[in-house]
């Protein structure tokens, strides 16, 4: 794999951009599809596998403009339909194509509150970029307009050029909203409710805000400074930020309403319950849930071995079980923590892997070894209860299952032993049961996901929920989409309350005048 330096990519883009700008008036759709899709400048894989700095460096202005010129501004707008928050994608891209970044970010922010984050972590290839007309014309989804990278570009441009302005906050309404969990769903609800002038308290169980953005997604994919910036914005808007507060334990959810007089509560506690597969040896020393491994490395800063008090296991050969983004994050983090060999063991093939394509590519570039059509049957320990190997089984693809993916079928007698000293289990997360256990009135399904109606309202009066606690482990953007919906419903409900109170007050006043 060849590595393209940012300087080279920038120089090439500059020359091309000048050429295309000169004949811009005559550009036909076909000409636009012939503009080369821009390559994301990345840190050199040989260097980045030993550091925590961000892997993708972001488009340069020239690259962004050139990439934006590839957009056909088609009438169908499949991209908008496939976006969970329906960003006006052709609209903002058109502004980038004309070098008007300020207008572009304005359009993005009409619907997306956290574009710097979404531009980095959204699975664009299965959302906005999936049915892009350019990708279709070139018969390759990888050749679609790089919508996510353009979104990231304008968000970074706004932040880095100091143009970020605080959203308008309406005068205080006297209404109180409690937001439980400071992950993507909670951040959006906090911002949207605060804008309407309500008093908003954001509760976080950990000592730092950000939820899964902080403890889960590694620094090399989403820098903490970006999360800090979003939290600082909320703080400046007047959102009350409370860490080290576990709703359900420090205070019951019902107490927030009854004792602390919150007028609305949003539950956005996420999918914080690691799933283990129940195979033999999962409790051995050296077996971790991806949540534990990543929390130690990210939130507790164990990557900084000199300063951090929280230890991280020192590994030589690591097996990561699973094929999603969390598995990719764990594998790449293990490499950065000093592991010599990291295997990702996945039951199906690369085509079925749920991880973002870009993450899989980055992992490969960093030397992560993929073992497809294999599964760990049991984990084997030594006399000290420490992992020393795993027993694997080989699989082949059979008929498609209900999800449409071809079902892996085990090959009998194909067992073999693979030497490893660490196993990271990244096969998914369930719903954290803390709130539902301590709030029996709250209706949940069999899996523990909170049940909501079309407006994200739960079975409890004045209580809403959204994100992974409702969806099960999903994506940042879906959580944000649910947050937006919930905030709109909360704001409606509170507006209605205010109108009723106002009418009642007027009546009292009128009656008083009559006397």
């Amino acid at each position: 794999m060849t590595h393209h330096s940012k300087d080279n990519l920038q120089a090439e883009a500059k020359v091309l951009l000048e050429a295309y700008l000169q004949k811009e008036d005559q550009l036909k759709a076909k000409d636009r599809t012939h503009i080369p899709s821009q390559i994301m400048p990345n840190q050199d894989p040989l260097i980045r596998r030993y550091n925590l700095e961000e892997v993708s460096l972001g488009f340069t202005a020239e690259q962004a403009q050139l990439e934006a010129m590839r957009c056909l501004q088609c009438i169908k707008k499949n991209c908008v339909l496939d976006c969970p928050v329906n960003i006006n994608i052709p609209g903002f891209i058109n502004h980038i194509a004309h070098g008007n970044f300020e207008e572009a970010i304005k359009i993005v922010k009409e619907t997306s509150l956290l574009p710097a984050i979404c531009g980095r972590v959204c699975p664009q290839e299965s959302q906005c970029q999936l049915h892009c007309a350019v990708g279709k014309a070139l018969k390759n989804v990888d050749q679609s307009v790089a919508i996510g990278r353009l979104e990231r570009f304008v968000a970074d441009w706004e932040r880095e050029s100091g143009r970020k302005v605080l959203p308008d906050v309406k005068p205080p309404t006297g209404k109180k909203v409690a937001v439980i969990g400071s992950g993507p769903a909670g951040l959006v609800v906090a911002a949207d409710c605060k804008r309407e002038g309500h008093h908003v308290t954001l509760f976080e169980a950990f000592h730092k805000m950000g939820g899964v953005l902080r403890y889960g997604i590694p620094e090399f994919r989403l820098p903490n400074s970006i999360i800090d910036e979003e939290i600082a914005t909320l703080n400046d808007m007047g959102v009350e930020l409370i860490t080290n507060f576990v709703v359900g334990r420090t205070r019951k959810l019902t107490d927030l309403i009854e004792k602390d007089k919150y007028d609305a509560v949003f539950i956005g506690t996420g999918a914080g319950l690691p799933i283990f597969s129940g195979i033999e040896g999962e409790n051995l020393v050296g077996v971790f849930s991806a949540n534990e491994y990543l929390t130690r490395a990210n939130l507790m800063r164990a990557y900084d071995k000199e300063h951090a008090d929280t230890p991280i296991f020192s590994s030589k050969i690591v097996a990561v079980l699973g094929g999603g983004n969390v598995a990719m994050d764990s594998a790449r983090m293990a490499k950065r923590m000093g592991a010599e060999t990291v295997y990702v063991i996945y039951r199906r093939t690369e085509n079925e892997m749920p991880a973002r394509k870009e993450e899989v590519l980055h992992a490969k570039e960093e030397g992560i070894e993929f073992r497809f059509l294999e599964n760990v049957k049991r984990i084997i320990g030594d006399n000290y209860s420490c992992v020393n190997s795993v027993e694997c089984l080989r699989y082949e693809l059979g008929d498609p299952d209900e999800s449409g993916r071809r079902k892996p079928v085990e090959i009998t007698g194909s067992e073999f032993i693979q030497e490893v000293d660490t196993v990271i289990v990244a096969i998914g997360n369930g719903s954290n049961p803390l709130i539902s256990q301590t709030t029996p009135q709250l209706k949940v399904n069999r899996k523990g996901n909170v049940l909501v109606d079309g407006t994200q309202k739960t079975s409890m009066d004045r209580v809403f929920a959204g994100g992974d606690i409702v969806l099960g482990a999903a994506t940042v953007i879906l959580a944000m989409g649910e947050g937006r919906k919930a905030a709109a419903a909360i704001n409606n409900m509170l507006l209605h309350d205010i109108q009723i109170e106002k009418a009642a007050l007027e009546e009292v006043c009128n009656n008083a005048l009559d006397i």
Partner: protein
Amino acid sequence: MYRFAFSLKGTPMNIIIYKEQLSKDVFLMRISAPLIAEERLPGQFIILQTNDDYGERIPLTIADANTDEGSITIIFQVVGKTTTELSRFNPGDYLPALVGPLGKPTHIDNFGKVVCVGGGIGVAPLHPIAQALKNAGNHVTIIMGARNKELLILEKEMNSIADELVICTDDGSYGRKCLVTQPLEELCQQIIKPDMVFAIGPPVMMKFCSLTTKPYNVFTQVSLNTIMVDGTGMCGGCRVNVNNEVKFVCVDGPEFDGHLVDFDNMIARLNAYKSFEQKKMKCFVEDSFKEKEVLL
């Protein structure tokens, strides 16, 4: 920047109110934490940090609480870097992170005749449980053990609760010279066996207490203190095998039926980071000496 220095009621939080050294390495602290004081029940714990940037999250059992003062009491033994740092905090100092109460509370009932066994620092978490059991009308026998007389804590407090108090030391410097399992076995051999045993102490002690009571079929509740990160069920680092099922100590526990706990696996898991912890401690002690030299 966003520290939660005040509770919902506006009282200051996380301030050390009182500190006392109970024995060579054991400290008692009262910390202002009105919300935790109000909610906590016997058997629950907190997680604290002495530094919320690079610090470690350590779980400690709540030894007592005072709702009038809005405070909780913790008792801890200095074993590593974080506990050493904590022992250097003084009244008026602010703890950057304190969260709780966590874990399920102890099931308190009138069981009849109960035996509470506390080993070393384990006497601290046992104290509120013994008190609650006494208040619920149980006949409470307390067995306290320590390596020697100096390491024995809360004798006066336990004595005021206990219907019977047995003290054992490994070296015989106080009370009986034996392990706690010996008087426990004697109690199990009596005609009227204990209805319930609560054992809290080092993992090895809890293991052997459970082994002692098993042949007599006396239900034995143990309180596990495993390695934890978040304490809310999110990481699974604290998992233990209980009756061949994986349980999370932070949300399913910390108390379990001692006859069903796989103690050997738990002890192995507790030692996972031993060498790192020892190295951190060594560096920390050396740095402290250097600081002192600079000051001198």
